Each structure stands twice: as C-alpha cells, then as structure tokens.
C-alpha cells in the first residue's frame, strides 16, 4: 500500500535520487506519511527491554571508553565565556588527567561565537569543534540569517554544524520548506559535517520522529540529532531507537550511512550504555563509532570517568576526583 502510493527513492549509477519525492510538498508528504507507523507502546517496550541488558566487566570497559569517545562535550549557555570554553576544551582532550589511557572526546560543542576560542585550544588534538547554528535553539529566524550564522561558524573553524530545523514549518506540514532549508544549510556548511537537530520534544510523536528523520537524511544531513537540550523531554531512549531504525533503513534503501546523536538528558554512564546497546542491536555494530554516533552531553562525561575509574581501581570514586569544567 505504502510502496505504491508514495514516491520512492530511485537509484541511478549508485547514487540515490530523491527528486521524485521532493518534487513538491505533496509528493514529499505522501512519501513521509507512507512510512510505516510507529506504535508508541511497542516502541517504548522494545527500548525498555534493550535497557535491561546487563553490561559487565570487559563489555562495560569497552562501552565506557567508547561512550567517552562519542561525547560532544557541550556548553551552550548565555554565560559562556572564553575561559569556560577553554577549560571545556582542555577537558575534552584530557578527560581524566590522572589516567593517560583515557580517550579524548569526539568534539566540543559551542555557540558560533566561541568556535574560535575552542579551535585555538583544541588545535590539532583531533577533537572537533561543533557549533550550533541557524538561530539555535528556536530556529525562528529568516533563512539568510540562519545561513549567515552557519557560514560564520564554518569560517571560524567549526568542523561540525548542529543546525535546528524549523519545527513550526514541520508541524504545519510544510515539509518541503524544512527540506530545502536543510539543503541550503548543508551547502553553507562546505566541508563541515552537518547535524540536523529535530527537537523531538516539540515534535512529540514517534511517527513525526520517523518522518523528520527521513526528511533530514534525504536533505543531506550527515547526522540526525534529537534535541537542543533546551526543551524537555530532550533525548530519550525510544526516540533515539526510532532514529536508529531510520538510519538503518536508510542505509538499506540507499547504501548511505547517517550518524545519530541523542543530546540532552543523558547524565549517567548507565544510561549511556543503554544507548550503546540500542545502537548495537538496532542499527548494528557499524554505528559503534564516534563517526556515526555521538552523545550531546555535559555532565555525562564525569560519570563515565567515575565508572571507568571504578573499573580500573575496583573502588567507587567520588566527584571530587574529577574536574568540574
């Protein structure tokens, strides 16, 4: 039923074209609404059951290090200063000064005006700088302002751009507008990787999460990301699972891999491990890599470090032994 009524991607010479789908708002709507629905109760039950996996010893050690490597260490406050950002960047490179075997995080995530400071500190450490752009967090600005915001961040050295979609347009059914905005931002990104933030807490239904995931993937986002961290609920395990199903299905359909980033609300190592289990079992082990999965977080890192120390020393640690930045 869905496959005949809605337009579908066509593959020509190995690259997938979504031209038929995005020919009009109506065709895009037909495609997105033709995607299989999500039953909330079933989806949440599945996520909860993944959350009961018991990850111990060697598996836990692997998961903790992987989670650290996946952290986009984030500060997105009005009160951010160069000093705060420098401190955060230092922590990103050496999360546990007491243990040199501790890996560094994936990126530092800041507002565009702080990109320069972050870049300066991080240098060639390999830790990326991610900048939120496009009138973060509300996305309520004219397109040219959003694009300028993006270009500024890229010019300042951002390796990754975390854009927000226009949720109003999405909820109003103006899918093509949302699509075209992502395409435009992607172009403005140049070589920088684009993460597309949905603010799933505002989209509310899992059906919307699945639709917006496909929309963003077709528009060229490198990553799809749950939340700004400014709206509750931010990332949840079921929402992330739905997005992992979407990237899995997208690869099946197009051969192309897209990353996933839950952001906001993941504060404990235990939670992070549940997400990794979900990545492993839903999208598959190919996604168990900072190139394909990230945690947008600030306080999570210290808990990961505490648990890591517990694994290596056999003692429970305390917050005084980890830096507060």
């Amino acid at each position, binding site marked *: *039923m*869905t*496959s005949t009524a809605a337009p579908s991607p066509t593959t020509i010479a190995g690259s997938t074209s979504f031209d038929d789908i995005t020919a009009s708002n109506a065709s895009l709507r037909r495609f997105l609404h033709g995607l*299989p*629905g*999500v*039953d909330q*109760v*079933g*989806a949440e*039950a*599945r996520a909860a059951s993944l959350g*009961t*996996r*018991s*990850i*111990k*010893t*060697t*598996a*836990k050690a*692997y*998961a903790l290090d*992987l989670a650290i490597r996946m952290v986009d260490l984030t500060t997105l406050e009005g009160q951010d200063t160069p000093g705060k950002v420098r401190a955060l960047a230092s922590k990103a490179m050496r999360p546990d000064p007491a243990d040199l075997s501790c890996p560094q995080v994936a990126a530092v995530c800041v507002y565009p005006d702080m990109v320069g400071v972050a870049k300066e500190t991080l240098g060639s450490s390999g830790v990326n700088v991610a900048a939120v752009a496009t009138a973060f967090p509300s996305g309520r600005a004219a397109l040219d302002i959003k694009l300028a915001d993006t270009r500024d961040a890229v010019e300042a050295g951002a390796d990754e751009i975390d854009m927000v979609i226009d949720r109003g347009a999405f909820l109003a059914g103006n899918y093509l507008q949302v699509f075209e905005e992502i395409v435009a931002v992607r172009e403005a990104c140049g070589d920088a990787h684009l993460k597309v933030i949905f603010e799933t807490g505002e989209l509310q239904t899992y059906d919307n999460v699945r639709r917006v995931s496909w929309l963003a993937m077709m528009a060229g986002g490198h990553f799809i990301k749950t939340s700004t961290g400014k709206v509750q609920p931010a990332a949840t395990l079921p929402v992330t699972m739905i997005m992992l*199903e979407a990237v899995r299905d997208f690869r*099946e359909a197009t051969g192309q891999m897209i990353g996933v980033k839950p952001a906001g609300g993941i504060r404990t190592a235990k939670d992070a491990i549940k997400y*990794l*289990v979900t990545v*492993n*079992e839903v999208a*598959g*082990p*190919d996604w*168990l890599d900072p190139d394909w999965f990230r945690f947008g977080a600030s306080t999570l890192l210290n808990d990961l470090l505490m648990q890591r120390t517990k694994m290596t020393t056999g003692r429970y640690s305390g917050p005084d032994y980890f830096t507060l930045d």
Partner: protein
Amino acid sequence: MADKETTRTVSPFEYAPAPESRAIVDIKPSYGLFVNGEFVDGTGKAFKTVNPATEEVLAEVAEASEADVDAAVKAARRAYTRVWSKMSGAERAKYLYRIARIIQERGRELAVLESIDNGKPIKESRDVDVPTVAAHFFYYAGWADKLEYAGYGTQSLGVAGQVIPWNFPLLMLAWKIAPALAAGNTVVLKPAETTPLTALLFAEICQQADLPPGVVNIVTGAGETGRALVAHEDVDKVAFTGSTDVGRAIAKAVAGTDKKVTLELGGKAANIVFDDAPIDQAVEGIVNGIFFNQGHVCCAGSRLLVQESVAEEVLGKLKRRMGTLRVGDPLDKNTDIGAINSAEQLARIRELSDIGESEGAGRWSPPCDLPSNGYWFPPTLFTGVSQAHRIAREEIFGPVLSVLTFRTPHEAVEKANNTPYGLSAGIWTDKGSRILWMANQLRAGVVWANTFNKFDPTSPFGGYKESGYGREGGRHGLEGYLK
C-alpha cells in the same frame, strides 16, 4: 544479500557473561510430597529433575502413587470441610494477600529456581513470570470476599484437582491455585514432572504464610499421577493446562461424572501482519510471539501470516532481528532464548522441523553457537509454508515460526481460522476499523492487536474449539470454581 543474511556481523561490543547468582536458591537432594501442610515421603518411586541447560540432575522428587494422591485428596477434603469452606471470604483473602507478598519478597529466589528447573531466561522469570504470579494472587485475593458481586453464585465446589504444564510452572500454578482458593475451594495440584521445584518451593511459602494444612497439596509425578488425580472420585473440579491430546483424554475420563472441568489446551495462533502495520513493532511482536519462552507457549504466534506486498520487507527485518537474539545460559541476564525444557520436547521440535524441511519449506536460522550440553534449539523460521504443511497445522511448541502469506483480509481470516485450535491470534495494522473487523472474525479466545503475548490477572484467557474451554484470569476466571 543472501551472504549478508547468513553471516553474523561480529560486533566489537560483545556482552560479557552476566550470570545471575544461584546462591540464593537452596535445592535439596530430594523432595517428598506436600500433603496436609507437611512434606511427606511418597509411597511410589522417585524421579529426577534436571537442569535442561546442563543436563545436571537437580534433585530427586517423589512420584505420587494412587495412594498418595488419595491421601492428598483426603487432606484437601478435610481442610475444605473443616476449615476453608467455613472461613469468611475476608479471612481467605488475607491468606492470599500474604502469599502474594511472600512471593514478591522471595521473587529473586523463585525466578532463579524457575530458570534452573525450566530453562527459561532469567530476564523472563524475573520480569514476567514471578511478578505476574504475585499479581495473580493479589488480584484473586481481592475477590475472596466479593464473590457475590461476580455474577456466578458464591458456593465453592469443594476439592479441585489441578494439573499444570512445564512451560510456566509457577505462573500456571498461580492461575490454578489463586482463583480456586479465593472461591473457597481446596486444591491438590500436580506440577509437570520436568518442573516440580518451584511448586515445592511454593509449598514452603504456604507453610510460611501459615495457610491451614490441606488447603494446598502438591503431588509430584508424571502422567499416571495426573490420571489418578483427575479420576479421583472425591475431586469436584478438574483444571488442566497442557496438550489437546491429554485434554481430550481428561474430557473422556470425566464424562458422566459431576466434575466441573476447565481445559487450557494447545494452539496454532496466526499472527497477521498487514502492509500498513507499524513494521518495527510488528517484527518485535513476531519475535515475542514465537521466541518468548523458547516458543513453549500455548498461545505462541507460531504461524506468521504476512501480506504478500510486505512479505520481503518483514522477513528481511525479522531475520536481522533474529540475528540479535542471544541463545544460551538461562541464568545469564542477557539471554533471550534459553534451553528447551526436555530431551523429549527437543526431539519433537527436531522431528517437526525436519518434516517441515522435507515437505519443502525453506528453513532458516541465524548463525548461533549452541552450548554442547543441555537441550538447545536455535530460533528458526520456515518460509514458503502453506496451510497443507504439517508445520502450519501442528503445535511445535518450540522456537519455530512458519511463515505464510496472504493477499486480502478475507484470505487472512480464512487461513487464520483454518485450524482445529482457537486460542489466540495477532493482528498488525494501523487501520482501526480493520482491527475491529479482524478481531470480530477471528475464532480465538485472545486477540492481540498491535501487540502479542500480553498477560494480566484481570484479563480472561482461554480458547475456542480444541484449545479448550473455560477462562482463567479476570472475573471470568472465578466461574470455573463456583456454583
């Protein structure tokens, strides 16, 4: 594609063993029968119960003889006449509440023992079986002093003879004992010969609850013991859960008597997936429908009926999902599929699967390493199955799914109902009116729409046609214990 499906992607994230400790359970070398509030030696032989995951002998258990059964029925009769039938409903309720609480308190112990004796994964015994058992006692406890509002009369029957299967040893015990006691009956219960241990632990719980002696009696044994119990002339009520063949034999045995009978028998449920289904949840429902409890479930969704237009997509996703199922040590917290309960059952699953193959159906299992000791069978599906195949008609009672396709809702209904069974069915579609139409058409006692294998003490469970008669659970569950 074929290669991709059959080679397991090796994950760098290998879950380390996460075994639940068995230190909490204390398995005695031998067990007697529980009669009149005491553990007593049987007069018959003893039999061994083994851990199906390792084939290790767990304990010797008394096989109740006809005389032992008679003693148990006499004890139940005495307790009925002198104590239980005279006690107020409110007081009976308090005993049942007490039992429910003790089950919660000793939940871990019960779950571990259940997994050891039965082979089911600890995550199921811990998260499904034991909590549902406690909930069942809580639910029926509340009925004991409210029978006049249930609509079935308030008079208890007397002594109930109850025979339960090995797939949910404790849960089936709860389904039998809780309503019987709430309604004012006393019971003699025979657990299955391969899974007697949690019933015997339950007997200890009855002692701990100071339940009056004789209200609950447990006689262990096999078919002969069950036959003696069912045939005992002082038994007023027979409740049985198990195979349709044995159910038939029981129905014949009680013919011409005054015994009230309820039977929960076999099934061959259709799990019907339409093209507009929430596919990912449907895949979970299919997996839960057939691989929950190793497929040792009478209401298992053992026939997948998938609409032809989405068959390929659903099967692709199903196979991928089956590749993530973890088969192994039942006590490992990450195990999804445990051990087959017995060598006999394993032989039956193998036999029917081999028949499926020889009848031309396509057999597929994900690559998985099975332990060398114990009874194991990988999650398996058969494609290209038609209604004429034996694997589409006979209850396999194992982790084996037969996949059939259909084109229209009418065809789905026709195929779903084309079986002598009628226990359960599943429907997956996003269209509300279609769900209700399908639910009306399906001749089955439980219809799960956009979900599967859900159980609740308040929800009546039981079959149409050869899946048996009577209902267990809910207000309806009282009917079989009252006159």
